[in-house]
């Protein structure tokens, strides 16, 4: 009898994860060595490691929640593999839902037919392949194009990249308002965003007033984790008021 939690699937997952972890080690060592050559201080590198690790913790737990949610139909190894590397919760859930729907199954039931499971794996695999192919074909060209722009006009090159950042941030800040039409509870994400902004403001004030420069490394993780923590009483309060 087929099980999506079989040892064979765990083995495949382990092989892919080890290889991709190896790739991360490879790039990390190269970047670290290069950093030393170009004179980036060890303190800056350490700060980058610590702040990136702290910043990743909460989103990683939310990705783990995605693994658990998908494991109800796909078992643990496949979501573990797909969400540790390559995928994102939005994509993997949509791909799994599309494939199970097409097979007349649901995401709430464990798949026990190997052909159906294989179909889902193929849909998830092919559905995300294009970006990887484009990365191979285009990364160097895009980077060369950006270098040309910077060489021609350094100031404009910097503004262009800042504009890309701001465009992305604007889209996600706009998204926060998507539920405001649903009434007071739809404002919860907006209140959480404002809390996170205020926390960042407080961090900025502390850095300026008390000269706490060390806080710069942790201001974004603090505002994110603080915003998440504050979302609990905010949700409770708003739901009470909305009743």
């Amino acid at each position, binding site marked *: 009898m087929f099980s999506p939690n079989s040892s064979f699937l765990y083995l495949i997952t382990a092989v892919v994860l080890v290889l991709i972890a190896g790739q991360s080690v490879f790039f990390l060592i190269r970047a670290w060595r290069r950093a030393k050559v170009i004179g980036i201080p060890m303190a800056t590198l350490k700060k980058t490691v610590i702040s990136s690790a702290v910043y990743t913790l909460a989103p990683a737990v939310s990705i783990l929640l995605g693994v658990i949610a998908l494991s109800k139909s796909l078992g643990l190894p496949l979501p573990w593999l797909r*969400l540790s590397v390559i995928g994102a919760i939005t994509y993997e859930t949509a791909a799994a839902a599309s494939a199970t729907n097409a097979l007349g199954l649901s995401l709430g039931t464990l798949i026990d037919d190997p052909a159906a499971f294989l179909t889902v794996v193929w849909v998830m695999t092919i559905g995300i392949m294009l970006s990887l192919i484009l990365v191979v074909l285009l990364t160097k060209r895009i980077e060369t194009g950006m270098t040309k722009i910077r060489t021609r006009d350094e100031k404009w090159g910097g503004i262009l990249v800042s504009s890309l950042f701001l465009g992305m941030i604007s889209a996600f800040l706009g998204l926060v308002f*998507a539920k405001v039409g649903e009434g007071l509870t739809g404002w919860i994400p907006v209140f959480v965003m404002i809390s996170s902004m205020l926390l960042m403001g407080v961090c900025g004030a502390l850095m300026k007033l008390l000269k706490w420069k060390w806080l710069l490394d942790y201001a974004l993780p603090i505002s994110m984790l603080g915003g998440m923590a504050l979302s609990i009483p905010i949700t409770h309060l708003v739901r009470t008021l909305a009743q």
Partner: protein
Amino acid sequence: MDYRENTHRFGRFWVLTVIVLLLLVPVAIGLYYQVLPDWNGLWRGLLGVVPIFWTVGAIEVFTYTPMLGAGGTYLAFITGNLTNLKVPCVLNALQAADAKQGSEEAEVLSTVAVAVSSFVTMSVIALGVLLLTQIQPLIESETLQPAFDNILPALFGGLGVVFISKGWKIAVAPLVFMVMLFILVPSLAGSVGILVPVGALIAIGVSRILYRRKLL
């Protein structure tokens, strides 16, 4: 060969290796269990995914590559979770180090940030899976649910303050446009990936006008 050139050489090699490896996963499952996919289900499943996710995937390559640098791009697209994790993580790292975009320092630190973020993600998921029975009641508890439902507002709130305060003249137009768009058409929430380049194009257009008028 210099560092950047080698980064592209190794990056392409690794991405191609991962493409082959990912394709081998379903091949191995099919061979091991002696089954073929349900072709009709496969076709219909792909129809529901490919039009939107191939478009988003293409957009992400063009939008995020200038932000992540070469090493960061190769690694981030393989390790996934770009929008909700890798890109903000790189912005955080570059902000903390005060590294100038496009500099070699930014390229190197971006790669370090993506690699560390990937390790932490893999470790958290591995630990979570191994300790699933112990931690599942906690992380799936109703009390903590709002925290995980609100990661994006919490993440982009703080990030927004930092970057908007640095470039508010550029940010106002795309920000107002996006807020109005999502209030008027909330169903677009599922297509935010496609709207990222729209925001970027508005920001670039505004900044070009301001730059030409020497207002930046």
